[in-house]
């Protein structure tokens, strides 16, 4: 992501706010005009204070009235401009965050699995924030700054072209300096953002799993590692912050040159023109010097902002790089599956996460509607990967998966997944109320249906005992045990009643007594639905219509429990191992 693309990205976000930004520029103009008028009139007022008993108070007060008006205008314009800029920036920040978040929803799981959550979430939080900070500062100061500079130049030319010329000749120096420095700061800021992302990822892992860290008294080691990382970040940040702060003194220096030049030219002019018709008065010199100050101020600010802006650019670059990540292929042209009958076939499926490491090869199986398939095999043989392929979490590399005879790649992911109900070993619940979690798949279900589902999995009792019953908010690490969470996950699927079910170790955390009670509900749920079950329990396996025995990515055997036991192969060996 180069700077140019990043700038284009920023412009894309700003475009909808163009009218407001235009208004902001108008405000900047008014503000600057008013602010520039003030020293002019003050100079005029001073010109009326010539010496003892030679002050024209009437004229001075007339000028004061005008100055008062200018101040009021500047006040109003400044405030309006700030409000507009605030609005634009916070809206852009909102949109950037929202777009990034929606991007997550469309990224392939492969990408999300490969990046630490902390690093990715940090982009939504920190990078977006730093970007907005830079943008806000940029708007507020850049607009006013540029307009001020131009305005001052115009006035100086009108006042005295010789002085204006001095100013114009010296100032490019500060621009060169600023440009030179800012090109360096961009690099340091980029590095800073990268190191910060690594640190955020570590913080996320170490603080997010603090309980494990404490259980292993690994606090000291983590603190030591963190200190090391922190030190590296400190060094990067020091470089970035210092470089960012250098343009300001440098421009200040150039400004002092400008100031001295103006004083010199002005004084000589005043002497040489004394007494002539085009006399350059002391008041006029005051005005010029004051304009010089006014002129240099925006340079200070702009150079300062330029540095901040490098930081914003570096952060924006990270945001846009993420937004440009390749998404999972869209399925807009794909058809809606509707409610499937539930015939599932995999033919010659091959898949691997990494090209050099083959995982699943030549996998074929055909499952009729309403059939119950158990996938068994030793830990790590690829059972979960098969499940993922059914759901299109990744698409297959070779071969095809069909539902009701249609290739799953020809239907929308949404309509495919609507047809599956999934319960996984890992229980994930939203940080929301029990009710919201249960009704996740069917937000329109009635209170009775929800309670019925909770009762079916014997969760109604403990839910009622929670502080606020169904309205208790459960966190990702709330006060529910893993087993209780899993029961809620089962109830969640029960409410959906999809034609196909995927149960991946769905009851591994539930104790057997409860499981037996839940079993009835499960049996009713599985009735007439195509089921894919990954399980260890004997009864579940025995009741399956078809057993797929997997080892190292291949189906090594398939058949019913009795057939396979009689065959005395791999499955029989596995089965008998427990006795």
């Amino acid at each position, binding site marked *: 992501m180069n700077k140019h693309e990043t700038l284009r990205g920023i412009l894309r976000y700003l475009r909808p706010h163009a009218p407001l930004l235009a208004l902001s520029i108008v405000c900047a103009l008014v503000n600057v005009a008013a602010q520039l008028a*003030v020293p002019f009139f003050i100079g005029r007022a001073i010109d009326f204070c010539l010496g003892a008993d030679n002050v024209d108070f009437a004229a001075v007060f007339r000028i004061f009235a005008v100055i008062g008006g200018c101040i009021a205008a*500047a006040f109003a314009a400044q405030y309006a401009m700030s409000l507009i800029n605030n609005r634009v920036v916070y809206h852009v920040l909102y949109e950037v965050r929202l777009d990034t978040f929606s991007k997550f929803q469309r990224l392939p799981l492969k990408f999300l699995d490969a990046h630490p959550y902390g690093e990715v979430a940090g982009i939504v939080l920190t990078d977006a924030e730093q970007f907005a900070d830079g943008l806000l500062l940029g708007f507020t100061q850049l607009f006013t700054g540029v307009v001020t500079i131009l305005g001052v130049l115009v006035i100086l030319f009108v006042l005295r072209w010789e002085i204006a010329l001095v100013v114009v000749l010296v100032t490019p120096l500060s621009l060169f300096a600023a440009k030179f420095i800012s090109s360096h700061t961009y690099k340091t800021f980029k590095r800073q953002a990268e190191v910060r992302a690594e640190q955020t990822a570590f913080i996320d892992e170490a603080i997010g799993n603090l309980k494990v860290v404490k259980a292993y008294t690994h606090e000291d080691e983590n603190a030591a590692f963190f200190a090391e990382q922190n030190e590296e970040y*400190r060094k990067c940040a020091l470089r970035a912050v210092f470089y960012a702060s250098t343009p300001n003194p440098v421009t200040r*220096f150039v400004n002092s040159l400008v100031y001295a030049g103006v004083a010199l030219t002005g004084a000589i002019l005043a002497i040489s023109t004394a007494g002539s018709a085009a006399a350059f008065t002391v008041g006029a010199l005051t005005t010029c010097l004051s304009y010089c100050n006014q002129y240099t101020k925006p340079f200070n600010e702009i150079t300062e902002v330029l540095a901040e802006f490098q930081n914003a650019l570096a952060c924006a670059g990270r945001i846009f790089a993420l937004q440009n990540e390749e998404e999972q292929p869209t399925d807009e042209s794909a058809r809606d599956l509707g409610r499937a009958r539930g015939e599932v076939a995999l033919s010659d499926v091959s898949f691997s996460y990494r090209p050099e490491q083959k995982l699943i090869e030549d996998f074929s199986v055909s499952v009729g509607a309403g059939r119950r398939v158990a996938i068994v095999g030793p830990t790590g043989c690829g059972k979960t990967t098969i499940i993922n392929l059914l759901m299109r979490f990744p698409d297959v590399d070779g071969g095809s998966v069909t539902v009701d005879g249609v290739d799953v790649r020809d239907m929308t992911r949404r309509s495919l997944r609507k047809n599956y109900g999934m319960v996984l070993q890992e229980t994930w619940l939203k940080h929301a109320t029990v009710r919201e979690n249960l009704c996740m798949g069917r937000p329109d279900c009635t209170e009775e249906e929800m309670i019925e589902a909770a009762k079916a999995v014997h969760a109604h009792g403990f839910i009622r005992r929670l502080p606020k019953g169904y309205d208790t908010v459960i966190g990702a690490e709330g006060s529910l045990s893993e087993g209780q969470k899993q029961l809620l996950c089962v109830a969640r699927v029960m409410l959906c009643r999809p034609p196909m079910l995927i149960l991946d170790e769905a009851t591994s955390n539930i104790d057997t007594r409860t499981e037996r009670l839940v079993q009835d509900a499960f049996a009713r749920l599985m009735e007439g639905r195509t089921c894919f079950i990954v399980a260890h329990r004997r009864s579940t396996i025995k009741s399956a219509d078809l057993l797929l025995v997997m080892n190292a990515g291949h189906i090594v055997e398939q058949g019913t429990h009795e057939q396979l036991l009689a065959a005395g192969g791999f499955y029989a060996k596995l089965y008998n191992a427990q006795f």
Partner: protein
Amino acid sequence: MELLVPLVVAAIVDVGIAAGDIPYIVTRCLILVAFGVAGLAFALTAQFFAAKAAVGASALLRGRLFEKLQSFSYTQIDDMGTATMITRMTSDVNQVQAGVNMTLRLLLRSPIVVLGATVMAFVVDWAAALVFVAVTPLLAAVVVGIMSATVPMYKKVQGRMDGVYLATHENLAGVRVIRAFCKEEDEERAFARRNAQLRREQKRAGRIAALTNPLTYALVSVAAIALVWVGGVRVDGGILLQGDVVALYSYLAIILVELANVANLIFTASKAISCEKRIEAVLAEEGEPDVLAPAKDGWSADAPAFAFEDVTFAYHGGGAPALHNVTFSAKRGETVGVLGGTGSGKTTLVSLLPRFYPASRGTVRLGGRDVKSIPAAELRERVGVVPQKAVLFKGSIRSNLLWGRKDATDEELMRAARIAQAEDVIAAKGGLDGEIAQEGRNLSGGQRQRLTIARAIVRRPEVLILDDSSSALDYATDAALRKALSALDTTVIVVSQRIASVRHADKIVVLDDGGVAGIGTHEQLIERCAVYREIAASQEKEGSL
């Protein structure tokens, strides 16, 4: 130095121009340039130290925060929540860094400049300088007023930020379930809602903060009018020269420039202060004390390996006790099974031994000593826990296993892996140097579980707790694991829902709804304990593969 500039200019006006002395003017202008060079050198030095101080301060703050958070007890972790801990460590500290840097760069300079300009004004003319004196408290009032209004607002902004982070993190962690339920759009809507709340707070705070600049500008400009007026009167009275008024006005202009900088600073500073307060709140928390009670008893070789004596425990704010009146003990080298239904208090029970939570009533003893009197590090050195949720950390297999004991040799690691049935996991990942992704996400649940067991075995603890740690293992692996564990001379606590996992234990504690339903061997319990019989019956038919 900058403050002398107007004086030099006044000299140019009053002496140079008045006398038409061009060499005088040239030398004075060269002095101005010299001032500029010196100013540059000083400013760069100042900037460097400001940056060093700001970055150093935030690094220190981050380090202290990290250590403080690590010292939190489980109860404190539960109460605070990890999302806010993480935003405090990242977003809040960054804001403080920006604030300190800006403050050092400007606040150290600006008040000096403002004060200096005021003093210089007094040198020129005391009456006109009174205008400066009058306007300063007004400016201070504006600054303080706006800051005190915005600081609490920015605190709210950061609070909303916690929400945004939580939503993002949760979404990433639950991505499979969310996609399975086609909830992407709902998630986006929910995120948009939190995001909009954040934006609303930001805009509210911004509205107030935006007043700083115009207000200070207006104040100083009005002061300029007053200054010229007073100056005019004094010139009229023959006390001041015209050049003096020019100098006075220049001082005011300098003040104006500084104030504009300060006004920009206020925005950053208010944010930094509110973030600092959130960090301060964490730092002010008392971490987990090393010991909770004075040591009364020493280690005793005859004492049971561990003992629960009439222990009752209730979670903070959890209402009814999660565990009540539990009494049992185990001899050294014994294997104790803890069995019970979902939510019966098994995990709570084993959390009390390493004192993750202190018992509310009763005493938990390790080797005869009250665990409350054993320093946390030593206690956890002696008690190894394999938690229910198998989490590994970014690094290599070796770096993860070394969590158990820093100085363990590769042979020891492999031996532990052999006991934990994790040899093939290590082989599959290409040896001990095999890479582990964050939280071990590049491993399956079963692989992770076995490595976490190995990690605990490396520690060679006196008591090893397996909290339902073999749920993702197939039956054969689980059986082999149990056999290998029984060969160790460690006291082992096996928490499980499967009778098969505990039936060979020397002692089985059956929990039901937080109370002990029965203690004994498998045979004794089958005979005496109804709950156990019921569980056994339910599993008789089940079995597993």
